[in-house]
């Protein structure tokens, strides 16, 4: 492959990664069009349509990524804690009704700016990576101190809890593997990590067991829709889950509710599964066009099932291959980084992207529960696109200022 390090005149930027990113952008615009065209043809001018807006976001995102590349990442990281605390502040502000907007989703995640809606959690993820990398880039010996370790955990928990409060379980959850991998790569003693993971796993397991199997009065209180998503994911029956003694009408209501809740997952699965090897062709997806795939989600969180239905397994492999290129070039960039800061930054970005990809695609084939996590560079959405491209810009930045250069 074109790896700059061995060539006579080293490339300033990582070409394969950039190509993969551009391919994904083309796919994104094409399938956002396919997913939304039936609702938007006609009166809306093309520059008001979703696919065009996505295109504009990509242009803006590329500009932002180029801007990020202009400045050495060391200089950027000097401002990391300013960015981090700014994001924490915005995450607090977004929780205030009247400033934070729900846009009919029941979760307060957005801030309306003139022209577009801004989703602070997308940027908080990046700010967290910058701050965490900066913090952990200290000498390895210092990481043996418990206080440093717990501070780093605190750095993770603060945005995690604030995003959970919105609530946006998916966005909060992707922070966890990102933080943990960064801690590991930084050189935190393995026993700390094992303790942390062990305690986390036991607590998480207890929580899920309690929610799913404990008698109603011993359950921890959670938002109803979150409990439902867990029930759907673990295939539990709403009727047997509810308090015993409900009358027939109540049971019927629960049953209907369960069908409704399972509907999205089921329809997404049908869309993906019916794609077969080569798919039904661009814009020919039946599930997509007949409106079985949830209309509200199919151009953002469920974009993958539109691609999988219309391009089949072939399309899925192409998408995964493109992501693999980005992720593995990212890991390579981490290996080539000039210093620990660059390596940690690259690892953080790679893990963050990977978590998004795994959760989002996994949700389409039902190995992960349904959580509102966008698919980087494919899902529609300004904040997500900007965040992803800035992350790519960071990777390129690290590459540009790598060891050999």
């Amino acid at each position: 492959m074109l790896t700059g390090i061995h060539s006579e005149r080293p490339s300033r930027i990582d070409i394969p990664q950039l190509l993969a990113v551009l391919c994904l952008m083309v796919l994104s615009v094409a399938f956002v069009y396919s997913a939304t065209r039936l609702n938007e043809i006609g009166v809306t001018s093309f520059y008001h349509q979703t696919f065009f807006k996505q295109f504009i976001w990509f242009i803006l995102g590329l500009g932002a990524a180029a801007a990020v590349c202009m400045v050495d990442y060391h200089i950027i990281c000097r401002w990391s804690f300013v960015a981090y605390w700014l994001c924490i502040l915005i995450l607090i502000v977004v929780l205030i009704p009247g400033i934070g907007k729900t846009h009919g989703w029941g979760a307060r995640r957005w801030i309306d700016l003139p022209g577009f809606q801004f989703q602070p959690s997308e940027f908080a993820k990046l700010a967290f990576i910058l701050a965490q990398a900066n913090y952990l880039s200290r000498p390895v010996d210092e990481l043996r101190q418990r206080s440093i370790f717990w501070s780093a955990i605190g750095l993770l928990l603060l945005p995690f809890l604030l995003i959970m409060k919105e609530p946006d379980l998916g966005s909060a959850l992707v922070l966890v593997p990102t933080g943990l991998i960064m801690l590991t790569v930084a050189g935190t003693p393995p026993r700390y990590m094992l303790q942390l993971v062990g305690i986390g796993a036991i607590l998480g397991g207890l929580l899920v067991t309690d929610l799913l199997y404990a008698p109603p009065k011993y359950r921890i209180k959670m938002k109803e829709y979150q409990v439902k998503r867990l029930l759907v994911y673990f295939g539990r029956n709403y009727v047997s889950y509810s308090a015993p003694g409900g009358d027939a009408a109540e049971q019927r209501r629960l049953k209907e509710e369960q069908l409704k809740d399972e509907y999205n997952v089921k329809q997404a699965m049908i869309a993906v599964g019916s794609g077969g090897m080569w798919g039904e062709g661009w814009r020919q997806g039946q599930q997509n066009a007949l409106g079985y795939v949830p209309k509200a989600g199919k151009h953002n969180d469920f974009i993958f099932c539109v691609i999988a239905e219309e391009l089949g397994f072939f399309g899925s492999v192409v998408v995964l291959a493109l992501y693999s290129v980005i992720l593995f070039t990212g890991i390579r960039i981490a290996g080539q980084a000039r210093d620990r800061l660059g390596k940690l930054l690259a690892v953080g970005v790679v893990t963050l992207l990977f978590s998004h990809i795994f959760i989002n695609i996994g949700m389409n084939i039902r190995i992960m529960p349904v959580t509102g996590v966008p698919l980087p560079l494919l899902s529609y959405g300004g904040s997500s696109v900007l965040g992803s491209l800035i992350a790519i810009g960071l990777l390129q930045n690290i590459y540009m200022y790598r060891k050999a250069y």
Partner: protein
Amino acid sequence: MLIFDQLKKDDPHLRFLAIVVLAGILILLTGLWWVQLVSTKYFQKSLENQSTRSVRIPAIRGKILDRNGIPLADNRPFFSVDLFLEDLSGKYQSAFNSAASRLKTNINLQIAAKEKLLGRKLKPQERKQLAVSEQGLALLHQQTRYDATTALLASLGEKLSQPISLTQTNFEKWYEKSRVLPLPVLINLNQTQIARFEEQSGTVPGVDLDVTSLRYYPNGAMAAHVLGFLERDNQSDDVQSRHFSYPLTDYKGVTGVEGLFDDALHGTAGAKSVVVNNQGFRHSETIETPPSPGENVVLTIDFNIQKAAEAAMRTHLGVNAHSAVVVMDPRNGDILTMASQPAYDPNFFVQPMDPAAREAQWELLQDTNRRPQLNRAMHENYHPGSIFKIVVGLAALEQGLDPNAKFHSLGNYPMKGLREPIGDTAGPGDFDFDRALAKSSNPYFITQGLKEGVLPRILELGHRLHFGEKTGLFPRAEARGNFPTLAAVSKRDWYPVETAYLSIGQGRIDVTPLQIAVMISAVANGGDVYFPRLVSAIVPDGETEPSETFPSARLRDKLGVSERSLRIVREAMLADVQRPAPEGTGHAAAVPDFPIAGKTGTAEVENRNGKKDRSLKDTWFVSFAPYDSPRYAVVVMVEGGASGGLSCAPVAHDIYLAIQKHEQNLKPGSKAGTLATVQ
């Protein structure tokens, strides 16, 4: 390679990350491989289920035939012009697009005008107010496709010289729910319209002629009560209890043969599945199971006699007289004719009709006085009156009555305990059995009935004739009548006066014309009481071998009286018709060269208050013919007639005349003659 570069490097942390990422990608790939390639059949099936609609195809209903194969209930082709919406989808889209671009220009003009007025660019917020909302777009879609459809229908209507109307609500309902099915826009086309359509339709896209089968009763109201009627059945509760997205209209039999034999007539509905495309229009269709037509039901009814009987009733009584005729073959109990007036036209329930005519017909059907849906031949109780004297006479003869003994009548019968004597129309004088039956002398038969041992004999005969019991022909549309039991007459509240009334067919006795037909058949055939038979066989469509037959001449009972007594009664009945009036009360029925034996009857009926009412009489004429070898038993009953002889006998006369003519046509000799001339 990218991956191996990292794994070679001596950086365990990055190697760990690379392995995690690689594992994750592989898990996703395996999952996708499983869902998209291994189980793709399952998911494609689910998708197919979501994109196919099953449509029920009603079967063609079996015919109802008379004994000679003449259809009494048939089907006729029903032509309609259908609109195939999938052929119009392109039209809808282009209509919408042009309307949309017009709208856009319009909005742009508005914006320009406003900007000129304000002298500045509009803010995005202000622009948004002028733009079209999502609902606005949906409405525009609706409006443009409705307009495109009506424009098409208008041009079609012009070509057929027939305006076609389609309301927007109906169209929209069809579009939303049944888009995959053709939309009928013009139904029940006549021959001229069909011809015009065939000539013109080539120029109009998306329309086609559709032909379905519709129940049709070619003879209108004829034998309506035997045939019954259909009603629209939207339940489509098939035996398979399959769920259909579109059941399509079907009919089910409610009463009469249509109702009783609905299972055989109905046939089995077929099913077709329609694949819809990604806009919900029909893409293709396959017939899964073709419908299998219903079986034909063959009746014992003879079309010619039925027709003659109803014509006779209309001629002599008018269409509104409450009357009934039953013609039975006394040799086996086959019902050759069953008619009831007033009648209704069963076509009313299935054939399309103009609303005003429908309203008028509905009024007539609901008339509580006429009650046209009532089958008076078997679903209503009547006093038999003098015709019951046949049974009383038989009982008395069996108990040793000398038919030649003279009885002196006073012209009425003074009954102990009654303020007035029981009246009589025969007048005073001397009567032997013959004259007493012919002139219907009440004192004669009351005297016989009150004799020791005669009443139990009357009851025995009545029970053997199964008075007071149903014949089982139409289980839910049959009156059982009333007839006293032996236990009832042994009770202390049974007074001699009731025996006296019973002896002249009044009081505690009610019968149906059908029961009387069974009775007169038994007298004619020498004492065999048969179950009446109406349906002789069920024959699958297009075949000659019946799938089910119903045996003829099912013996129900034996009368158990001597041939001598029967002969005496029959002779008296013959005299009643053959002697001119006043000696023969039923002379009006007589037909030359066709010896008929008969008996008239006029029963007084209590009105609602239990008082006798002269205007409410059940008048009868019961008869059989030819006298020497009886093949026909004819019973005529008229509610509120003048008398049996005046109201009923002329109807019987016409029926016998038609039978005589009919028989001459059927004679082997004449048939051979026609064959010979053909050859």
